[in-house]
């Protein structure tokens, strides 16, 4: 079932936390609400769940407006950040709680609990209480409680953030797999861009109560709509250099205090003589062997080894630096004079005032 948000607004007192949100979560897709804390993503999820009233606008499940429907009548399931398992109940009772409340016959309930426990490989834990489980096991029980009722829509509020890093990677893949197997619409909230990139069909990047960009993970990564998205998505973060676009020798070029860069035809998008911000990912920069010929030159300020890669921070001028990601075996050390190479196809230009991407 698809979920449509139409001009959703939410105020807490005088504070407006969500502004005119328009989104469509396509049926059976995994959609992530991604943003820094305080961007309104959890509030939006809670509104879809019916736990938070809507100030203005409409939420539709299919064609039906469900603004006034109680959570229990929405046929949704939710996984909470803290898991929110009932501490006094065994895993079995936790899993079956939603069914028991709905007066499902005992045999049917047992079958559903056994089935879900089998899928999640927690059958041996059914008679334990949440207090006796590890974080990862609790996570699975919380997931199982959501799966057992076979809901139309899964809502997940940062379900992996309480797990340790290694388990998080495993659970990421499993969540994606369960989503494909269950075929329910999933709405997932996280502040972790890696989770968003790896699991989602679509990502809605949120900031300041506004959806900044809605698109596929590839889209938001390679074609960021504005400076916020460009800076938020990608690790290490994108380099930004402020400057202006001007014609030079009949060709558009980006000019900054530190360097001038010829632009590929049309990439400036008619930004002539305007203040712009040039964005380039560390992965899209190269270190050039002979600095004399490179358009951009600087001195290596610090080198960070990541394992297979290293991050080289190159000091250009007055405290302005560029991060370049290179293979770990690249010979470079602190205080080397280096040149930085750009790929004109892989740079992003943004209007300095509005922050909006400039495209041809």
């Amino acid at each position, binding site marked *: 079932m698809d979920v449509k948000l139409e001009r959703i607004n939410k105020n807490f007192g005088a504070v407006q936390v969500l502004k005119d949100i328009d989104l469509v979560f396509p049926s059976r897709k995994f959609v992530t609400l991604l943003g820094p804390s305080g961007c309104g993503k959890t509030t939006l999820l809670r509104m879809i769940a019916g736990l938070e009233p809507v100030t203005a606008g409409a939420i539709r499940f299919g064609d039906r407006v469900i603004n006034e429907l109680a959570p*229990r009548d929405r046929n949704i399931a939710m996984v909470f950040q*803290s898991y929110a398992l009932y501490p006094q109940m065994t895993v079995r009772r936790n899993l079956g709680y939603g069914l028991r409340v709905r007066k499902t016959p005992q045999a049917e309930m047992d079958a559903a609990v056994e089935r879900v426990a089998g899928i999640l490989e927690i059958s041996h834990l059914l008679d334990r209480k949440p*207090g006796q489980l590890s974080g990862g096991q609790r996570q699975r029980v919380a997931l199982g409680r959501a799966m057992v009722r076979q809901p139309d829509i899964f809502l997940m509020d940062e379900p992996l953030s309480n797990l340790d890093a290694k388990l998080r990677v495993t659970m990421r893949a499993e969540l994606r797999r369960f989503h494909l197997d269950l075929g329910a619409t999933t709405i997932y909230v996280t502040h972790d861009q890696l989770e968003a990139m790896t699991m989602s069909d679509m990502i809605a990047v949120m900031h300041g109560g506004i959806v900044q960009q809605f698109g596929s993970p590839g889209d938001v990564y390679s074609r960021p709509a504005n400076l916020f998205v460009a800076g938020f998505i990608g690790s290490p973060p994108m380099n930004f250099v402020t400057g202006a676009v001007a014609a030079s020798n009949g060709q558009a070029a980006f000019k900054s205090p530190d360097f001038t860069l010829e632009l590929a035809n049309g990439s400036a998008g008619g930004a002539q003589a305007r203040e712009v911000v040039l964005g380039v990912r560390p992965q899209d920069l190269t270190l050039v062997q002979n600095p004399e010929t490179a358009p951009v030159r600087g001195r290596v300020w610090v080198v960070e080894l990541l394992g297979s890669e290293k991050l080289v921070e190159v000091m250009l001028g007055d405290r302005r630096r560029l991060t370049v990601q290179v293979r770990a075996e690249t010979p470079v050390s602190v205080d080397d004079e280096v040149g930085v190479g750009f790929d004109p196809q892989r740079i992003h230009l943004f209007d300095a005032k509005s922050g909006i991407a400039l495209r041809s």
Partner: protein
Amino acid sequence: MRPSYTLSDRTVGLLFIAPFVTAALFFMIYPVAEAIRMAFYSYNPLRPELSTFVGLANFEYIFRDPLFWDSFWQATVWTFLSIVFQTVFGVGIAMLLHQALAGMAIFRGLLLFPYIVPTVVIALIWRWIFNPEIGVVNHALQGAGLINEPIYWLSTPSMAMASTIMLNVWKYMPFVVICVLARLQTVPLELYDAAKVDGAGIVRRFLDVTLPQLKEVLIVVIVFRTIWTFNKFEEIYLLTKGGPGTSTFNLAVYSFEQSIANLRLGVGAATGVVMMVMLSLGSIIYLRVSGFGEDERAS
């Protein structure tokens, strides 16, 4: 080499607990030991030279005394009903005060009022409130047309018992409310959200989320309130003096009457020892049966 005037950690630790141990010895251990000793003696404070060891005679006396058994049953009724009403109203009021409404802090503050006012003052005020001729309760009930004749709150046996229970509930319910309210504020809100999504209505949310979370604090509160109520002396004595007749005697009042009015300090002490044994056994059995601390032991 440490300077010689430095005390060892052990000595410092002992010094820190010394004031408490000293106070406890004088004000807790000694009186209890003395009461136990006295329970085996015949002791008249006016003729201390005649004090003699009488073995279990004091205990035989109280177990044969019908007034002891009347006091015991009355104490049980008064304790049981006081605790039931305190707990039920206490939880209810705590849940009301837990609502996030403007000005709630004022009500939470007012709650402490009955708890701070000295019992003597409260008892005097309640005697006026319960006064059959000029008391506000009868006046209000008559004004509302609920009763035609004034109710003799403190001078008929059953009404006197009801009045002492009302006073006790009124004065000590804030204790229950504070304990429960403190616990309520730590219940994770996500549990309620999860229950709502699972389809639980308001009653099931209370039974399946709130009540299990309150279980431990309620067990403790009930044990403490039971001990304190069963032993309570001044409320009954100040409000009814155990009367009319002996209809609101509890064991504390009985012990007081034996010791002070009848000058049989040995009998009074024996009553105290019996109360102590009953409450200790009762508390241990109750904590076992209610499964207090089960989760900690399991994990």
